[in-house]
């Protein structure tokens, strides 16, 4: 018990004193996960849109494929990408392994199914008249697309938050693809893993607290946003 208290106390101290190494790790986390979400969202939305609005052969298969991918463990995603990105893998020439880009790729792979599945659900349940009304009022397909996005923004935002929540706290893929390199690919979850394995519980707890706070905020936002979405329809 006293060990826990002691560690917590030190953790608070670290957080408050603005320990540079600690904040560097936090910054890397946000940078990587933020880029992953930014890159993943547009194509994921397009696919979600296509699944919801287009009728084409194989559509159902794709839909269930993406919901299946949701439950693939991060480590498996990480391992698969590791083998692809490794110098001996087919994409080895990209030289991405053990870079921030590799982590971004891994997190994109993790975020993508969530974005597509939840985005699809949101767009699917959206009123088809939104698209039709926009089109018949003379909007170009592109403008109509953005109208639909706008009309379903709460559902889509929920998808975004859920995806972000998953990747910011994910350790397996980041560890494998990034290599946990100090000041470069060491993010919050991999640092926690490392620090606890070293017995440096204080830093682990400090970082854990940040994640907890973040999860709390994201969840709060998610509930708020989902509430909004329900109100609207």
């Amino acid at each position, binding site marked *: 018990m006293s060990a826990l208290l002691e560690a917590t106390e030190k953790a608070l101290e670290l957080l408050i004193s603005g320990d540079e190494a600690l904040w560097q790790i936090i910054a890397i986390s946000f940078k990587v996960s933020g880029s992953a979400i930014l890159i993943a969202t547009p194509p994921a939305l397009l696919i979600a849109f296509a699944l919801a609005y287009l009728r084409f052969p194989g559509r159902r298969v794709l839909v269930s494929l993406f919901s299946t991918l949701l439950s693939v463990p991060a480590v498996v995603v990480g391992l698969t990408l590791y083998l692809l990105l490794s110098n001996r893998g087919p994409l080895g020439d990209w030289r991405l392994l053990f870079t921030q880009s590799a982590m971004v790729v891994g997190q994109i792979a993790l975020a993508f199914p969530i974005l597509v599945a939840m985005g699809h659900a949101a767009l699917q349940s959206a*009123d088809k*008249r*939104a698209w*039709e*009304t*926009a*089109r*018949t*009022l*003379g*909007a170009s397909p592109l*403008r109509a697309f953005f*109208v639909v996005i*706008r*009309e379903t923004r709460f559902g889509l935002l929920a998808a975004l938050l859920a995806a972000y929540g998953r990747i910011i706290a994910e350790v397996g893929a980041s560890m494998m693809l990034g290599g946990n390199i100090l000041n470069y690919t060491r993010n919050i979850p991999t640092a926690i893993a490392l620090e606890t394995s070293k017995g440096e519980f204080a830093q682990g707890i400090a970082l854990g607290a940040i994640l907890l706070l973040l999860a709390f905020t994201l969840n709060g936002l998610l509930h708020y946003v989902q509430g909004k979405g329900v109100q*609207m329809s």
Partner: protein
Amino acid sequence: MKPEYHLQVSQLCKSHGRRLILNEVEFSLPKGSCTLLTGENGAGKTTLLRILASLEKPDRGRLRLAEQSWQPWRKARRMLQQRVMYLHQHPYMFDGTVEYNLRFALGSRVPQRDAEPLIEKALRLIGMESFRKTSARTLSGGERQRVALARAWLRSPQVMLLDEPTANLDYESRQRTLELLQRLRNDGMTLVIASHDPLHFEGLTEQRLHLQAGRVEAVELNMNPATQPANVILMRRDYA
């Protein structure tokens, strides 16, 4: 004198699954005319209008637009989309104010300076000036119908398709809607109104298409002295 047609349709077929909804349908819409579309529930009125508005694809069909020659439907679709607009039976309001909904119909290319007076005029047209900043989602069904009409007026298509525009309206709103439709007609718009209440539109329409068993069954002429020119020969195939 041959009447001027806005569009002519022939060989139009559409099925949902095994069911043939429209079977070799053909008709013509004279320029500036008002057509009433009737038929039992499930006869295919909505389907026909949605096909005309390019919201659904027909199985096949041929189309002739105003001054052009007959074309397969696929080729003519783009042109059709630019000219025709469809009003849902239950209009959809975008999430935003009434003003936002009206502004949308003007497109992003119309500058705000020009949009302002138009929006004002549209609101006056439907007698809803005080609703400008109201959230469109909170409006009643009748109010939505009016906003949708104003929105359509701002878009000012050449052909407007209305799906049961007076269903669920009280007497007052109905009169107002009819006035508006009259106005659109006078502006030269071609109208098609699907409705179960032909009586409401007496005096406004000069042809009536009756859908039955997948075909346009009966055509009644309704000479309206107020509108010129009177149009004849609506069912004849007119390959010139």
